[in-house]
């Protein structure tokens, strides 16, 4: 019904020229608000329905990650995007773990890409706004598996000592992990980004595309900012933890990841909030899809 209402978006940046430029670029299709400072932004979020929040990272007094984390509490329906020219590791990890952001966009941006990203985020926000009631779809398996895809045993061992023990499946290769995914419901994938010396982050993105309610926790010593940005935009990784990682922090992250998975199951409308940029690597997509089909199929007639 409210087709004519423009979505509302809020830009936060301490450089007014950035704001001026962005307002001009978006005001034709959106109601555009802007704030030069974090507290002001949070106040706006508390008082208005805002569909998309786009924040800079490095600002005086309140960093972008802090603004995004605040926004998550004050206005969870608002989609969160970081727009920054400074890619420091702490900022990126914070934007994943605390900000739970939808996209990480680097300055200088391409206007067309930013338009697409914001349009997508706005569409998601508006659809989830009209869809806030929990709708249980199908049966939610309360004990969906947790795959630990890792060569070294520590992470699995921590879980084996916890009440989650019976849900843990260990895998040493991506194929083994996919075999598990094909044979039983999987809630959570815990993995490094480099497996046997190979970078598996593109595969994580494709897996997320294949099973949107799959929640991923990455535990890694690898500290490449470019990689982490791709993990946000292309794989919507839920948490990134340093390796070696503290037992408590790890368990806490696993718990909240499982809760997140349940939420995605209960409210499928939420899935769109974590949709990923489509992988451009067609061959990888089809390879993974084929593999999943192949392992799924032979099981079908037996149980069927």
């Amino acid at each position, binding site marked *: 019904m409210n087709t004519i209402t423009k979505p509302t978006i809020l830009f936060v940046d301490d*450089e007014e*020229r950035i704001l001026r*430029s962005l307002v001009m670029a978006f005001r034709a299709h959106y109601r555009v608000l802007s704030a030069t400072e974090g507290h002001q932004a949070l106040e706006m979020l508390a008082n208005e329905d805002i569909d998309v929040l786009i924040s800079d990272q490095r*600002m*005086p007094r309140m960093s972008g990650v802090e603004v995004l984390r605040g926004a998550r509490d004050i206005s969870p329906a608002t989609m969160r995007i970081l727009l920054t020219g*400074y*890619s420091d590791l702490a900022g990126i990890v914070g934007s994943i773990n605390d900000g739970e952001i939808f996209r990480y966009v680097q300055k*200088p941006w391409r*206007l067309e890409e930013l338009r697409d990203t914001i349009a997508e985020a706005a569409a998601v926000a508006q659809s989830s706004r009209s869809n806030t009631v929990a709708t249980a779809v199908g049966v939610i398996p309360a004990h969906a598996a947790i795959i630990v895809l890792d060569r070294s045993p520590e992470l699995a061992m921590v879980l084996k000592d916890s009440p989650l023990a019976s849900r843990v499946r260990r895998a040493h290769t991506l194929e083994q992990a996919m075999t598990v995914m094909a044979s039983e419901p999987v809630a959570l994938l815990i993995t490094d980004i480099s497996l046997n010396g190979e970078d598996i982050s593109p595969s994580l993105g494709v897996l997320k595309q294949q099973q949107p309610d799959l929640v991923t926790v990455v535990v890694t010593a690898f500290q490449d900012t470019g990689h982490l940005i791709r993990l946000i935009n292309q794989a919507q990784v839920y948490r990134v933890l340093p390796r070696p990682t503290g037992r408590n922090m790890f368990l806490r992250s696993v718990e909240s990841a499982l809760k997140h998975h349940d939420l995605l199951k209960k409210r499928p409308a939420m899935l769109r909030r974590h949709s990923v940029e489509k992988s451009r690597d067609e061959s990888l997509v089809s390879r993974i899809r084929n593999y999943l089909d192949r392992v799924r199929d032979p099981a079908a007639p037996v149980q069927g």
Partner: protein
Amino acid sequence: MESGCRAPSEAFPMSHLPLARLTIPVHPLTPSIPVSTVADLFLSDRCRDLLCLPIVRDGHLVGTISRYTIMRIFLQHFGRELYGQKPVERFMNKSPIQIEQSMDVEEASLLVRSTLTLPITEDFAITEKGRYVGMGVVLSLLEVMEHKIAHRSEALARANHQLKSSQAQLVQSEKMASLGQMVAGVAHEINTPLGYVRNNLELALDFMERTRGVIDSTDHLIETLLNPASPESQTHLALESAATEISSHQQDAVLDDMRTLFDDSLHGLQQITDLVADLRNFSRVDKSRMESANLNDCIESALNIGRNVIKHKADVEKYLADIPFVECSASQINQVLLNILTNAAQAIKGHGLISIYSGVEDDQVLIRICDNGCGMPETVKNRIFDPFFTTKPVGEGTGLGLAISFQIIEQHGGRIEVLSRENEGTEFRIYMPLRKAEELDTSQRQATA
């Protein structure tokens, strides 16, 4: 009676001890053996290398007889005739040098050296738990020692070299780390103006395309109007389409904003230009030479480069007086100021204030950089200029910032002072001399050294 120099070596198993390796298993003499027999032995090939022979009773060394003593006896008139048949016991050295085989080479050589007389006339006897096992040659012992020392000093030289190069690496990695930080910071500073300049250009391009739409539709309208043959419906259509084009164009109101858009972009480009210039100022390679510089400019330049680290930690207040130029290497002074400003920002928990003053005091320029950060206790304050002293976590601080700064200011003939109070703040004072041109020569040589 088998009395001679070298016994078969199996009888004296070699041990791993260094002195055992030096032990020559010389068959000992009995105290009663005649002097002339000893003289013959010394002449034999087997004892050629030995300066003296051991004399043993019941396994215990009782003395040694040296080649030198025998020589002295035989050199006397009728020496051989008078003493040749006397027992060697009468002429032996009753307190020879005895060394336990388990002793280490250094200790042994110390002992030997302390009893040594010139010319060297005696070797030393080697015992094991007090019992005689063989002889040792002083020269071989000293040779072993010499080797050892040479080896050690080589190892020392190597260690020294390694230390130096690892120190250099550390300095290098510190430079790289702060360079990395600086580059990341500057990248942000450049990406911000780049962000809006690019966006503005894309908007301008959009606008141009749409302006072309307006022009095309008005062109078409005019054509239709001027053509007497065009039917009224067509004229109407052209009029309508031109009107929509124009109105949508105006609705965006971009034309009014165009001015701002371009002004902003020019401003952004200027900012990028300044940053690139500042960066060049910072690279020491390009100038560590002395020049006439205004320290106020150095302050601005350091603030620009450090803005990223500083701005989210503190507000900056500047009280810069009109100060005369100072002869200095501006890039090095920039480095010092950046180090101090970075420290100030890092000392602040939450959001604080950094105040910078400049002025003249006597014949010096004084710069004061004050922060209201955590301050430091006396014990820390006394050490902050030490290389590698840091209170920051591993990986965050190398503790070289102030050490390098101190050195730079010293080379300029200036000095740095610190005032600090815990939990209240810290003030760094940099004094730079106002020097005359003729003094420049020497300082230049120092600073570039």
